[in-house]
């Protein structure tokens, strides 16, 4: 489980996150939905420990895997070497790291690119390696920051399938997005973020009931108060 309790974060004079509290339960995909600049990335960065909150705290029970905003691969390293490196950084032995890297290559369908340097990878291939790196230690909790951003249709579908599979395996999955379709396609629960605050939280149907709207798009626009910064 991942829990945000009254998170607040200021950069200089700008209040990026004002008051964010929510819980993402196990066995479930929770989406952090909001327009660009709503404080999604900052909230996630606090949850995975890169930033310290000015107030509030983040609670994560157990191991955490993170797919940050940028894939950030090393051009001269192969997919396998990336996975092996991540495994070693998680404290696995060399033998175990080798086995996990091989298993992850099979699981994410990366056999073709396994031993090629990352310099020539497509966006989708880069994101696959980054996802494999985040999952290499089989964490109970997974945070993904806009995982489908910049991917083409097949890669997006593959990524969504991976996200669903994680939740079905009982993991706690939290991912941020500004794309409405994505919420409808993969989410069990939604946390709606606007201007650094949580404006609504619940299952998609609960949000429809609360707003009295018949489709999700209208519901979100009503909750956020604007259409700006949302992607269809």
């Amino acid at each position: 489980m991942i829990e945000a309790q009254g998170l607040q974060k200021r950069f200089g004079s700008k209040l990026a996150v004002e008051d964010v509290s929510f819980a993402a339960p196990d066995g479930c995909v929770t989406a952090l939905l909001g327009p660009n600049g709503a404080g999604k990335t900052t909230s996630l960065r606090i949850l995975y420990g890169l930033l310290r909150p000015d107030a509030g705290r983040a609670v994560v029970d157990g191991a955490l895997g993170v797919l940050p905003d940028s894939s950030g691969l090393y051009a001269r390293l192969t997919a396998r070497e990336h996975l092996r490196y991540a495994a070693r950084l998680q404290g696995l032995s060399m033998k175990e790291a080798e086995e996990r890297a091989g298993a992850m290559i099979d699981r994410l369908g990366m056999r073709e690119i396994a031993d090629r340097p990352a310099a020539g990878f497509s966006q989708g291939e880069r994101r696959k390696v980054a996802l494999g790196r985040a999952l290499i230690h089989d964490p109970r909790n997974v945070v993904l920051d806009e995982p489908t951003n910049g991917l083409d249709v097949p890669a997006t579908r593959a990524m969504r399938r991976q996200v669903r599979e994680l939740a079905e395996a009982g993991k706690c999955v939290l991912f941020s997005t500004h794309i409405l379709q994505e919420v409808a396609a993969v989410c069990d629960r939604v946390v709606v973020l606007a201007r650094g605050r949580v404006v609504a939280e619940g299952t998609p149907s609960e949000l429809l009931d609360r707003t009295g709207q018949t489709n999700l798009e209208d519901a979100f626009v009503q909750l956020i108060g604007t259409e700006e910064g949302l992607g269809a």
Partner: protein
Amino acid sequence: MTSKTLAVFTKEALDAARDRRSLSSALIYSLFGPLVLALALGALARSTSDDGPLRLTVSGSEHAPSLIRYLEQNGVEVVRPPAPPASIHSAVRSGDLLMALMIPKDYTKDFRASKPARVELVYDASRSDSRSPVRRVEALVQRYGTQIAGLRLAARGVSPQVAQPVRLAQIDLSTAASRAALALGTLPIFLLMAAFVSAMNIAIDTTAGERERGSLEPLLVHAVPRTDLVAGKWMAASLFNLLGMALTLLVSFLVLRWDRLEELDVPVALSPGDTLRLFGLLIPLALFAPALQMLISLFARSFKEAQTYLSLLIFVPVIPGFLFSFQRIDPEPWMRTVPVLAEQVLISDLLRGQAVGPAIQLIAAGATLLAAAICLAVTARMLSHERIVLGR
């Protein structure tokens, strides 16, 4: 060393070894210093072969047989002009002839009448290779004149010494050895610079570069202790730095063994033992430089900016280097505790053959390693600062 440090070290060393471009630039840099030294010493070897036979084109030699004999007795090989005397000027101007001595017809008449007999030395002063032979011919003709003057005075019953109220004796203590020492004085500078060259790119790549390509955040989310990360990166950079340093020393050693230098007749060669001792005293510096470079790179806003700072940093050792090599400063005790300066003093000591106690060497090594440790500790702390991590 933790297993995570080892993982970071392995990855960074592998990554750097595949980076052909920065590897080859580091290689060229480490060869640069010794090659400059080779050129300087080679030029020196050529210029000291002054005392060999000197070929001198003389026109009108038939007018002055005794002068010609004097020149020949003093190691000058007199050559007849290939062309008529009128074209000698143009031959010198065009560079076909280095210089020529012209003896006019009137020489015999004036000489017999005890009048100053004119001889002309034709040369091009803008040619630097003419300077030394011209001086030699000038001095020989001058000495011949003094000898004749002495004979003439003696024939008239006057002591030749009367005509020489002052005698300037030039005692040039600069020997080939001391000039070679001057050229060798550049060796410490190149060695100190080498410590700041080989690891430069990897120091930037693992810090500012890591942040710029967006791989720092994925790295930090693995919750690896920052000290482990910094230690692994530093060890990889240090490995390449030590290899570069070893290469620089090896090439310097080979250059100083070069046959040509035997003509210098000076002990410029580095013994294998001295070369190893030099390497030993440079190890702390080769470990300190990447630590400082990583710290500076982390503060830079971009890869390019880090590159600018570190290129300037290479020249830091040059300043004390020049002072010590060319000014003969006596080292003050405090200098032995300042990184870079301490190594400079130790290298000078070693090249001058001065024995230095182990305590002094340990203090120098300790001071430099302490500075390295401080840089690493600050770098590790910086990796917890949001501003540095996000590059704002």
